[in-house]
């Protein structure tokens, strides 16, 4: 690698750093993304100009094919499908790291330039990359709801065995570097491990998983960087690994669950608490769009709290129309966003932005909670556990201590939901039976459209 290549890599590392910095501020985020893309372009051009490249046919084919597929996916995707696309891209990044590390390891074995250090780095890249690849594909399947499989009894023992096997194969790779068999076995077991670890993790924990896989894809690039002795891979991969870890941490705090709890004790059980019949019997009042419109007509301050159900019902545009109608009538409308509402970090923000609702109206949990007491009507659409007051009151509940949106403190709470079925935590929600709550049963979008229409007719 000559000096110009090294300097080019330095320039692109600097652009990645400036890009990430700008990506974390709303006013500069577009520029930040462009900085990142420019850094990537420099890295690719500099590498192509380097003397190490002898044949270009395969490279050009791969570049064109990959760019075309990536572009089509990016342009075609619906905003509601963003979580699964992010998972898919993540997986491809991890898969690329496995392939790069494997090619480099095999080549070093053939040329007898291998070393224990190279073998160890290749083992790490193969393992992290393989787990990221299959883990992300499983997450993709789960987010598309194409995959409902969540494992089999005794799966944990199989996972632990697989994890132990990866360590054995990594040691064999270092001890017997001429034999690529150990590498392939490591990749295979790593791939199985990715499936086993992600499969049992359910819907509401998905934001944590996606953020963690994001971090892992960076770490896979770091390991590949150690294999290739490439400073840019190490730096860029570390930046991504760190930012993914921070997002993971933010998501865990928002659910009051530790990362270990998410990974290894998925699906909190609702057993032991009060049954749904005890909580709901005779106390749930249902309402109609016309009645909700009457309530809203007199409201001065309205809060809208969206959850994953809004994404499923594709109701974000209907919600935008309702909020417009209310604002035209002189009401103040704000949106209360729980950090883990939806299936990935920031999911609700993306959907509401797609519907052209200004991000200044989206209020974070800590800022909106003190204002619910002055809110006349709160509309909860497709959210459940993140507004369950049990988190504050019952220390034995599976969601005890989880920060929630205190919607129950507002004047009236209208909950738009298909049925009284429990959320991910599997426990009944006393909010639905509260004196100031009204249930509007039905499809989220139809319900909101109905309210907007009724408001127009008043």
């Amino acid at each position: 690698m000559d000096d110009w290549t090294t300097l080019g890599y330095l320039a692109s590392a600097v652009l990645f750093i400036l890009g990430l910095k700008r990506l974390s501020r709303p006013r500069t985020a577009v520029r930040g993304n462009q900085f990142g893309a420019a850094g990537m372009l420099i890295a690719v051009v500099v590498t192509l100009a380097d003397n190490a490249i002898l044949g270009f046919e395969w490279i050009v084919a791969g570049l064109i094919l990959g760019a075309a597929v990536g572009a089509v996916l990016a342009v075609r995707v619906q905003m509601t499908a963003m979580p699964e696309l992010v998972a898919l891209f993540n997986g491809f990044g991890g898969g690329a790291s496995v392939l790069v590390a494997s090619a480099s390891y095999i080549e070093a074995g053939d040329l007898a330039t291998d070393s224990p250090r190279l073998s160890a780095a290749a083992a790490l890249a193969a393992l992290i990359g393989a787990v990221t690849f299959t883990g992300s594909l499983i997450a993709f399947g789960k987010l598309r709801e194409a995959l409902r499989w969540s494992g089999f009894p005794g799966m944990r023992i199989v996972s632990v065995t697989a994890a132990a096997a990866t360590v054995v194969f990594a040691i064999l790779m270092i001890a017997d570097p001429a034999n690529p068999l150990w590498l392939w076995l490591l990749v295979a077991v790593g791939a199985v491990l990715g499936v086993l670890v992600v499969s049992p993790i359910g819907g509401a924990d998905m934001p944590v998983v996606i953020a963690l896989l994001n971090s892992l894809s960076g770490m896979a690039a770091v390991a590949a960087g150690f294999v290739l002795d490439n400073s840019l891979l190490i730096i860029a991969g570390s930046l991504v690994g760190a930012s993914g870890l921070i997002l993971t941490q933010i998501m865990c705090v928002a659910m009051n669950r530790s990362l270990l709890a998410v990974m290894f004790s998925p699906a909190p059980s609702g057993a032991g608490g009060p049954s749904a019949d005890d909580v709901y019997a005779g106390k749930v009042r249902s309402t109609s769009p016309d009645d909700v419109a009457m309530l809203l007509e007199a409201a001065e301050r309205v809060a809208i709290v969206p959850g994953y159900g809004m994404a499923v019902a594709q109701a974000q545009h209907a919600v935008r129309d309702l909020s417009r109608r209310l604002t035209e009538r002189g009401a103040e409308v704000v949106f209360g966003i729980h950090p883990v509402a939806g299936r990935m970090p920031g999911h609700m923000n993306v959907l509401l932005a797609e519907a052209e609702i200004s991000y200044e109206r989206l209020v974070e949990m800590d800022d909106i909670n003190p204002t619910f007491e002055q809110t006349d009507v709160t509309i909860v659409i497709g959210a459940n556990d993140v507004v369950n007051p049990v988190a504050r009151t019952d220390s034995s509940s599976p969601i005890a201590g989880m920060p929630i949106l205190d919607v129950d403190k507002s004047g009236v709470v209208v909950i738009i939901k298909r049925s009284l079925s429990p959320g991910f935590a599997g426990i009944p929600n006393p909010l639905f039976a509260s004196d100031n709550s009204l249930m509007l049963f039905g499809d989220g979008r139809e319900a909101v459209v109905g309210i907007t229409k009724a408001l127009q007719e008043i």
Partner: protein
Amino acid sequence: MDLLVAVTLFALAVFLGVELITKVPPTLHTPLMSGSNAISGITVVGALVAAGANHHAFTTVLGFAAVTLAMINVVGGFMVTHRMLHMFGPKRRRDPAPGSGDGDS
């Protein structure tokens, strides 16, 4: 590169990443994730070397597959992030203000 130099780079870059990202507003969680995800496609650099080294037909095929996967990650990641951020942008912001028409979307 000396192993210790590489480890030093790694450790410093992790700390730098933590300092850069702390305190990112929730609105940007998704774009930050997909943008940084695109950056993790930097493996494309290694993939180019593997595909172009003309070492062995098999490693060339591995390299080709790696270039393709990494490019999907890179191009798709940056483009979809751009699309998302464009929706957040102040230019397209149309607040529900009295008299405002319906947005085209």
